[in-house]
């Protein structure tokens, strides 16, 4: 073996580090080291011979190890924030982020941190961003946190109530809000996650006239469309569709008589079937309406409602009420949940069927906390999640067996949760506490 040719000697803040160009090349072109070397990873002729880098050597040691091993170990004497700042200098922040936690697995989640909010009153929604950040909506404010859980300037909606929020990409958040009577405000807007500025306002047009409206639930499709349930002043109820790139309204599915779309609690775009799931649930309406819309044919291709369902016993009524619904394309079914966290299933291939309830948690009855939150459902890579009181249950396998339970008693019931960027965020109803659950990095062996 010969002498290693790509040896590099760096003086960082007075400490000498020896490494190789190959190791530094892991940092990629778009980093300090990428600029320091030429296209063949030889040192640029312009750089001085001793390669002094005027930065903190302790942090550099951690980051150099990250490049060497792909793993991140932060000694207790280094504040995380300091390390992040150094990583930003070298252009290694993305490396740090992807090494900090592992790929998402609902059965291996650990509570990483709890953030205490300071907003009064209940939170409306929490939404995970694509790269580990999140936003929390309550009242007319949306607080935005990046993956380092630094809070950015909040999105302020001029005191109008926020209904839903969602991330289009790591710097763009769409927010839907109530219309303010007489002002023409409200509707849906695109905001910068880093600065909180309004970038674009989405309009609804009926008969070539721009109308003010209240935007409700949101969903985004993989082909760059935005869906929102809309309620206009002159009874223009339905689902609006916008193009993400042009921002223009491209479609509107009007609510058919005797059905509910404009008040929907939940929208879910189904990529495989090219349909949108729309669910309007109790208590927003007295009845539940779940339907699948095909926009290409302007048709409701599947629908279910509990209107006229026989009521044998008043006490059973609550048990049969659907509180959340989610479509599972892999099994062509819809999963629903009642307020006791009983799961029910419906077949998407035949319309007009009934719910198959699988009573699992009868024990819950009578143990309800004083201020309950209705259960919510989420689906992530074949794992089903449902929140109930202060815990989140994880169900797996073809029969949806309960495999894990995430519980943390501080902060009261969980009013919303969201999965994204390989993290799970759970928002508690009291004091806007939210928890961040992560999967630890993979084991060494």
């Amino acid at each position: 073996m010969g002498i290693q040719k790509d040896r590099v000697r760096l003086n960082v803040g007075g400490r000498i580090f020896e490494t190789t160009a190959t190791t530094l090349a892991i940092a990629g072109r778009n980093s300090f080291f990428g600029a320091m070397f030429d296209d063949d990873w030889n040192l640029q002729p312009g750089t001085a011979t001793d390669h002094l880098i005027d930065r903190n050597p302790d942090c550099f040691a951690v980051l150099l190890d990250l490049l060497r091993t792909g793993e991140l170990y932060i000694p207790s004497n280094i504040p995380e924030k300091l390390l992040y700042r150094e990583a930003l200098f070298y252009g290694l922040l993305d490396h740090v982020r992807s090494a900090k936690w592992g790929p998402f697995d609902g059965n291996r989640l650990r509570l990483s941190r709890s953030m205490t909010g300071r907003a009064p009153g209940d939170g409306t929604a929490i939404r995970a961003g694509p790269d580990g950040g999140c936003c929390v909506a309550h009242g007319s404010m949306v607080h935005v946190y990046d993956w380092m859980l630094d809070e950015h300037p909040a999105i302020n909606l001029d005191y109008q109530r926020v209904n839903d929020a969602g991330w289009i990409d790591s710097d763009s958040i769409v927010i839907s809000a109530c219309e303010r009577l007489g002002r023409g405000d409200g509707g849906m807007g695109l905001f910068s996650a880093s600065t909180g500025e309004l970038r674009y306002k989405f309009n609804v047009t009926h008969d070539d006239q721009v109308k003010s409206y209240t935007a409700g639930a949101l969903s985004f499709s993989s082909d760059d469309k935005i869906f929102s349930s809309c309620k206009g002043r002159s009874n223009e109820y339905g689902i609006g569709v916008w193009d993400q790139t042009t921002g223009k309204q491209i479609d509107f599915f009007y609510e058919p008589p005797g059905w509910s779309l404009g008040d929907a609690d939940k929208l879910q775009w189904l990529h495989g079937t090219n349909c949108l799931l729309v669910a309007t649930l109790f208590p927003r309406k007295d009845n539940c309406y779940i339907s699948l819309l095909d926009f290409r044919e302007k048709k409701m291709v599947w629908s279910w409602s509990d209107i006229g369902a026989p009521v044998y016993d008043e006490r059973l009524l609550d048990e049969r009420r659907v509180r959340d619904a989610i479509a599972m394309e892999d099994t062509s079914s819809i999963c629903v949940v009642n307020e006791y966290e009983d799961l029910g299933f419906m077949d998407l291939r035949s319309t007009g069927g009934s719910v198959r309830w699988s009573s699992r948690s009868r024990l819950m009855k009578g143990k309800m906390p004083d201020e309950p939150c209705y259960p919510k459902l989420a689906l992530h890579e074949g794992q089903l999640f449902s929140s109930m009181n202060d815990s989140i249950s994880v169900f797996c396998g073809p029969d949806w067996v309960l495999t894990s339970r995430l519980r943390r008693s501080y902060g009261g019931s969980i009013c919303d949760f969201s999965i994204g960027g390989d993290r799970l965020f759970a928002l508690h109803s009291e004091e806007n506490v939210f928890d961040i659950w992560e999967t630890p990095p993979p084991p060494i062996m």
Partner: protein
Amino acid sequence: MNSNSNSSNNQKKRNFQIEAFKHKVVVDPKYPEKTWKILEHAIQEIYNHNASGLSFEELYRNAYNMVLHKFGEKLYTGLVSSMTYHLKEMSKSIETAQGGLFLEELNRKWIDHNKALQMIRDILMYMDRTFIPGNHKTPVHELGLNLWRDNIVHSSKVQTRLLNTLLELILRERTGEVINRGLMRNIIKMLMDLGPLVYQEDFEKPFLEVSADFYRVESQKFIECCDCGDYLKKAERRLNEEIERVSHYLDGKSEAKITSVVEKEMIANHMLRLVHMENSGLVNMLLDDKYEDLGRMYNLFRRVPNGLSTIRDVMTSHLRDTGKQLVTDLERVKDPVEFVQCLLNERDKYDKVISSAFNNDKTFQNALNSSFEFFINLNPRSPEFISLFVDDKLRKGLKGVSEEDVEIVLDKVMMLFRYLHEKDVFEKYYKQHLAKRLLSGKTVSDDAERSLIVKLKTECGYQFTSKLEGMFTDMKTSQDTMQGFYTNHGAELGDSPTLVVQVLTTGSWPTQPTVTCNLPAEMSALCEKFRSYYLGTHTGRRLSWQTNMGTADLKATFGKGQKHELNVSTYQMCVLMLFNNADRLSYKEIEQATEIPSSDLKRCLQSLACVKGKNVLRKEPMSKDIGEEDAFFVNEKFTSKFYKVKIGTVVAQKESEPEKQETRQRVEEDRKPQIEAAIVRIMKSRRVLDHNNIITEVTKQLQSRFLANPGEIKKRIESLIERDFLERDNADRRLYRYLA
């Protein structure tokens, strides 16, 4: 959601401001200016090719610190003005470059700028990552391109000059000069790097306009002096040149645009003139079998709208004209075999044109088929002729031909058959011709016969061929019957004549009700024996003798002892046998003794007595026609080189006029029950239907056999109403009802 949100937020903050907590980070007020000077100097050194003395780490740290200490804006605006300054300097040196050096200088400076831009971007990487996204600024690399665009490419002294230089070089290349393609590629690549809009606006659009002008003029010149084939060659070459140009130094997306310009100017605008060009247009190409030119025309015309339909229309009308001439040519109609052969040749020719020049285009094949269908049916005798053609082939035409070739001929015939509207007429003739072939044992190949029957069956269904197949079965059973007859009675028959009987099922064969003639005594005894044998083995049947269709072999000895075997028809045999017992017989005597119908008898005597070389009888007086007063003798002087002598009957191969009418009448008769059956089938399922719809449905159902005449359908409907199968609706007279 509204623009007040930020200001109201600030308002709120201001209320809570506490001065003491405000940090003053910048200690040295000259710090930003000092740091920027270092960076500005570095940028200058980079543009001066003097970067080796710079410390990357120092510059990166300085840029980082400026952004960190909130001087990002200063850094950015400084960068813009510094880069703008250097680009303006470059612009001056490009402008002063003379003539051909202009493009080279532009290219050199572009390379320099790109190198500098890369280094500047490296130094300012931190600003690119943090300051620019949050402040809606353009990233460094893009900024560098935009400034290059605004200060160089769009500068008043460069923009037009650049465009003109590029267009002139392309024009020179079109006129045959060699240009520096590498330099062209670099400059065009620069325009593309500046964004698709720059490439399109500053080069592509004017390039397409200039090209359109160029090709408009050139095509006008060509069309005046070239014939169609040459013109197409030139157009093809130009098209390929442009495609090649795109691949060498233009954006790939331009290919479709420039080719569509050439297509429009050189082809679409001159399409009709080219196709109809005198002495060299499409029709001449077809006549002269110019496959290469035809192929070129097809490939060029397919590129423009309506191109192929233009070719197709001209080809179709030419084909229809020639076809019409062919089928109505009185000379041709005299020889049916030649007639059909001509049709086949014509089809082969166009098949070859379509397969070798027109890419086997389905639409062209359809046009060919519809043209043939059009003109074949112009001649009402086509079905008969096609059947005669087959007859000819199956009698002798296929001797010594391999099985595959037989199949090919038969397939071609089937192709023509498919075009026929009156398939049932063909069937009638085919049956007659087949019967003659089978009964006279003239068919060459049983396999070929059966192969054709199978083809007809797949084409028209079981019903169409069931009778034809019945004929083959009859032939086979007759053989077995004869064998049985001779095994049973062979001994008692002794040395009486050999009898071969073919038992034909009534209905399967084209028989005519004829009077049986008087057979010679030895024959009629034999026939009686056969009759009793046959009726003994098959009960409930009736046998009648078709003496008009049989043949006989006679051994005869003439005056000087010359012996011959005479092959004659049954009628002729009856006549000849009479001379065993008499030397002279008058016409009247013969007629009385044989009871052969007079027209047949006359023909029969004519062939026995009047054909030179075959006149086994002698007639008095000697004349060509047979008179009722004539007398006949055995021609003792008869000689022939051959031992076996075949004495034919004088018959026209083609049908005579009355026969033709008879066949026609029979076809019409046969159609009646078929039409009625179709009407009843349709009405049974539809119950009520109006007149026009019945006509359409019936025509559709019968299409595979013949084209039903609406007048005839109407007559059949009326007949069915009379017989209470249908009734007219009382309210709406146009409606018919089915009566169960």
